[in-house]
């Protein structure tokens, strides 16, 4: 647990600590992810028929927008202007996958991408960052992780009902989306950005420096995949099948 504000700063100036640049890149990923989630929920509201569902999607969009603002505010507290880029390499691909489901007006596929895949990664990685992050920064990550976990719980209720109607068809759909979205997500949290930079790190890739703030890509990836597998278990998908799916992801 390091202090993010150097002690010899003048009273009003906020001097970032040597690790501030690492937190800037971590926050940039979080803000971008939340902004994309807000956009996804807004898009989802356009294909809902039930006024209650429309209102709920819009409410979720506002909530995710609020999370993005909270993360950005945490950055400002430590003297950082946190950037965001929804056209960043990996986020753009995920957004495109989501928008294909919107184009097909496939509400269930949208929920699977946003709630099962993206939120699993968000909850698991925010929880780890919450433990490593100093002071209010860590608390914010932990608190938002808890809120996202509630989203997953709500979505699971809807998706379980859907799976009960036709388990085989449902599982095939999850697998198709898994290949599309989880491949990108695992590339995003791979040990090295072999396929090119993520377009969010402000200088060099942050991954090799994560250990300086008590994090590693191995634990972020491991915890995210573990949460994803457990969420699929909770949906009722056979564990031996989802294990194969995860084992076949790129590294």
């Amino acid at each position, binding site marked *: 647990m390091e202090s993010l504000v150097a002690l010899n700063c003048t009273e009003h100036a906020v001097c970032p600590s040597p690790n501030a640049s690492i937190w800037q890149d971590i926050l940039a990923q979080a803000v971008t992810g939340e902004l994309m989630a807000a956009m996804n929920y807004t898009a989802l509201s356009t294909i809902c028929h039930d006024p209650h569902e429309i209102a709920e999607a819009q409410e979720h969009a506002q909530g995710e927008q609020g999370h993005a603002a909270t993360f950005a505010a945490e950055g400002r507290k430590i003297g950082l202007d946190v950037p965001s880029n929804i056209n960043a390499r990996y986020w753009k691909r995920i957004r495109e996958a989501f928008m294909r489901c919107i184009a097909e007006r496939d509400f269930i596929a949208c929920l699977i991408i946003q709630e099962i895949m993206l939120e699993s990664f968000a909850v698991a990685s925010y929880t780890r960052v919450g433990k490593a992050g100093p002071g209010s920064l860590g608390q914010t990550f932990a608190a938002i992780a808890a809120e996202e976990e509630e989203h997953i719980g709500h979505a699971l209720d809807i998706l379980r009902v859907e799976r009960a109607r036709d388990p085989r068809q449902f599982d095939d759909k999850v697998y198709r989306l898994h290949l599309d979205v989880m491949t990108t997500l695992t590339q995003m949290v791979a040990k090295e950005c072999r396929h090119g930079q993520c377009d969010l790190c402000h200088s060099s890739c942050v991954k090799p420096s994560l250990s300086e703030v008590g994090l590693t890509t*191995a634990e972020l990836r*491991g915890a995210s*995949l573990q949460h994803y*597998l*457990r969420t699929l278990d909770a949906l009722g998908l056979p564990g*031996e099948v989802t294990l*194969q799916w995860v*084992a076949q992801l790129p590294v």
Partner: protein
Amino acid sequence: MGGAIAGVNGRTRETGVDFALIGHQESWRAAADVVAVLRGADRAPLPDEEIREIFPWIPSRAVCHVEVRSATGAKARGLYIDSFIPPDRLDGAFVHDNISRVRAAAAYAINAGAKIVSLGGFSSILIEGNFDQLPDRRDTVFTTGNTLTVGFIVQGVRKICKIEGRTLRDSTLLIVGASGDVGSGCARCMAPFVNGLCSAPAIRTGCTCLLRNWKQAEPMCESRPNSSTFRVEPIS
């Protein structure tokens, strides 16, 4: 079970199985082999370093289905459930984490509807015979495999008595290693049917405690022919 494994299938779905086996990999080489099978032959194997990083995060779950056939042609369908205990985390420092992995594997077996679950060697050592550590078992029964071993031993003793023309009711049974899981199981099983029990334990204190328990259990041994002469005693 006296039969050959007829098939191992990683893709079949668990729709009620007869049995489940809970285990873990004992070396990173074995873990790498499991991951390689899961990835399939058409994908490049994962580097060892990647496997060591990913493996500990995998929750306990079925890895494959097993089908066995007896000599009489009876079939039984089962699951192999791996607790994904990392091979380098078997020592005491990880005991709580490992117990929770075994519990999760047990829960998986119960949810899969397995009628009987066998805990592998290390898993049963972790549970130490205290099945209360396992989750709500519904109709699933758990065994360490020792029960079957005891069954075979008791069957063997009965058979040899018949061959030698002796009756169990008139015999005193000597149990070597009576303080262990298998030895104590044999003692509990045979006590009602023999004239007396003698034990030669590997651990003296454990045996003394056992003898006390057998004596306390004596009134329940109704099938013993001559309870007034029944004796339990350790021999050194």
